[in-house]
């Protein structure tokens, strides 16, 4: 595994990393240690919580692991949840790389899923997935991209702070989608649309039988691809070079001939599009319909994923797996301890990482 793949925010991304072994190890430790320490802290806090419920930590942790990575169904569910989180994590991470704090991944995710479902309902049923997939990607990307682009343009043209505008758009967009679904598109007695019959995306269980019952589907591969492409874009292309320059020192970027406003709105479109494509996972990979409020926090959790993944696309994938495991594990241990305990654990991970990562401190300063 190269230093990059381990989730290191590259100091030297353009050209081959320094050959100096010790420097490389120090960089690796700096990237990995906070996450490891955070997980350890979470485990200790978890021990105390579990003991307070009169249970044995060993038993509960074994249950948690068996229910997630221990069997094909559980693992499939982890992969399914990690897929959405990868997209929202990438969305937040790419924004942060440009110095933008996108809190709107929640509504961008929903909008992406919604537009993809609309397109799906219009397509003739039975169209093969190979033909529909590009259309779905464009539709979901456009849905999320528009919702993300509005705050981007508002910032570039009027200086409106994206934290405020993305939060407000969350309310507006989610309410709008709720209205459209409930008033016009719902199947009687539900809060979801009719089933999309065109080009259903296959589940993993159709290739690997033991995954049977889990929601994991081929959008998983799109997520991995998206992470790789995002990494390539950020660290290998000219536009990525300019995007990160804007995030690090907007004044120097401006001096370097980079139109900072353009980078802002384009990044927000990209960020929204990434979150929007995440909507495919639920809408076309799992349920085959749009259901109101399906995002249920995956957009907000993307902020935590990006931070724990240190805004590095590969780190985001790993962090998405961690949070997906915790979330799925909560269901597995529900019999012995309340599921809310797992929510507490998740919060502990976020706080521990947030406290240990220098980028977060810098980011918080920026927001103030």
């Amino acid at each position, binding site marked *: 595994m190269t230093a990059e793949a381990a989730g290191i925010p590259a100091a030297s991304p*353009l*050209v081959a*990393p320094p050959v100096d072994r010790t420097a490389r190890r120090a960089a690796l430790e700096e990237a990995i240690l906070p996450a490891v320490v955070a997980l350890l802290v979470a485990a200790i806090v978890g021990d105390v919580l579990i003991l307070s419920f009169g249970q044995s930590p060993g038993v509960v942790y074994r249950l948690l692991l068996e229910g997630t990575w221990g069997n094909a169904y559980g693992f499939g569910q982890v992969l399914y949840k990690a897929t959405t989180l990868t997209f929202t994590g990438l969305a937040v991470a790419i924004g942060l790389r440009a110095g933008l704090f996108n809190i709107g991944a929640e509504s961008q995710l929903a909008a992406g899923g919604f537009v993809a479902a609309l397109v799906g309902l219009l397509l003739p049923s039975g169209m093969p997935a190979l033909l529909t997939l590009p259309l779905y990607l464009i539709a979901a990307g456009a849905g999320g991209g528009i919702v993300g682009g509005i705050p981007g343009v508002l910032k570039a043209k009027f200086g409106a702070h994206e934290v405020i505008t993305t939060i407000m758009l969350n309310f507006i967009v989610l309410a709008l989608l709720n209205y459209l679904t409930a008033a016009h598109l719902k199947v009687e007695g539900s809060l979801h649309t009719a089933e999309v019959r065109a080009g259903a995306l296959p589940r993993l269980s159709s290739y690997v039988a033991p995954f049977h019952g889990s929601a994991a589907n081929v959008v998983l591969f799109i997520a991995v691809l998206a992470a790789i492409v995002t990494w390539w874009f950020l660290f290998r292309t000219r536009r990525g*070079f*300019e995007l990160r*320059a804007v995030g690090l*020192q907007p004044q*120097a970027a*401006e001096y370097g*001939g980079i139109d900072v406003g353009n980078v802002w709105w384009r990044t927000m479109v990209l960020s929204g599009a990434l979150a929007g494509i995440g909507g495919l996972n639920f809408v076309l990979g799992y349920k085959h319909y749009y259901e109101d409020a399906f995002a249920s926090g995956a957009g907000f959790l993307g902020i935590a994923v990006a931070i724990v993944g240190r805004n590095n696309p590969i780190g985001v994938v790993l962090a998405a797996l961690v949070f997906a495991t915790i979330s799925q594990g909560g269901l597995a241990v529900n019999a012995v301890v309340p599921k809310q305990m797992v929510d507490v654990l998740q919060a502990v991970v976020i706080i521990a990482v947030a406290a240990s990562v220098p980028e977060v401190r810098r980011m918080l300063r920026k927001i103030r």
Partner: protein
Amino acid sequence: MADSNSPTPAIRLTDISKSFGPVRANRDASLEVAPGEIHALVGENGAGKSTLMRVLSGMYTPESGRMEVNGRDVTGWSTAEAIDAGVGMVHQHFMLVPTLSVAENVMLGRELTKGLQLDRARAEREVSELSRATGLAVRPERKVADLSVGEAQRVEILKTLYRGARILILDEPTAVLSPPEIDELWHVLRRMRERGETIVLITHKLDEVMAISDTITVMRHGRTVGRLHTAETTPGDIAKAMVGRDVQLAMDYVAGEMPAAPTTGALVSVAEPLLVVRDLVVNDVRRLTAVDGVTLTVAPGEILGIAGVEGNGQTELLEALAGLRAVRAGTIQIGRRDVTRFSVKERGDAGLSHIPEDRQARGLILDYTVAENLVLGQQHRFTRGLHLDGQRILDNARRQIDAFDIRPRDPHLAARALSGGNQQKIVIAREMGRAFQVLLAAQPTRGVDVGAIELIHARLRAARDAGKAILLVSADLAEILALSDRVGVMYGGKLVTTLARADASTETLGRYMTGAAAEDAA
């Protein structure tokens, strides 16, 4: 007028030395200020004025020397002790809480309470009393966020006085003020002098020194080089004391390698100018006119130096030429092309290079590597398809590192890790190591060691000799005189004169820089 023979001076610093690593900020600096006088501490940037005053206010401990306040030995005291003894410093950058009211800010750290509650009413009463007594007019219940810069500064001063300061140190208080606000400040300072308070004013603006001070101490390169009575001196004398010997030194230093006559006048007049600026008007950040109708031309093979006290529009002029600040009126031409509406990138493609004034904020991305910084602004020329061409970027870096002696010689190092001089060499290498016609060089050697200055000056001359047009802005008169073929002076946003190098001396430039020459002419 204070009497310098008075038995106990309010402040007496003797042979103070203070170093930061290899930089000797103060070397045997001495200062004596009589009670009840306004004393100006003047010198160029980096002369050690602020350091000396921070030593006095207890922020730094001197390595050697003796400090006395009102006759008491206070060598190496702490800030708390300094405040208790009535020595207060108002910093250049305000330290106020914008969401709190004026009264709350003033009492911060010494909150008045009534039971468990803050006694706001009493705080406001006390602040308005102090405000009336000193003439520092500001309403105590207003929020600091709503105040103008001048008002915020009054709050800073009030805060210091509220803590019982009788000796007040002001660090470049006018840097952020508009002219009417400056007049207001002088009024307040005079009133405080009448009340018997002692004031030390740090500044590098000579007109301020003449306007307000009783006595003057001049610093240069960490030393105190002169003590003057304002009534018995002229701005020219002060300027000479500030830079005089330096100019000689720099001139001697460059004489060896410089051709006898910088340029032949004939070449300048025959060749068509590469940079043409007509009637340029530019606003500053506060939307006040900063550049007021500047017209200038720079011919190929010519360095036009712009001298002037900082804050007279030079920064805004260069930013406007570089495309970083909107032009309100006037035109900018590179060769025959009108580039007034061009973006930064388009100007770069049209042949403009720019060494910015502030390398850490503008010139470099500190977390990017040396190699990456060496292509900043040129990144669109180092691509292969969508990709940045890592190999070419690296080759370019190796070449520039060699050509400009950037140390350490590691293209992968983050720019942050390099010394100030080597950071500046990255900027110079990038801007001068590519094809360009016109170079804007702002403070190209500020904060750079002697070796790097030599290299940078040699490069600028070589570019001039190669037929480039160079506009040099520097606060360092010695640098201007050492490099320029013609010298312009900016004062109050106007280019008040342009002189041939032969007609420019420290004395003549100093008179234009302080506006004195303009008044003579009027």
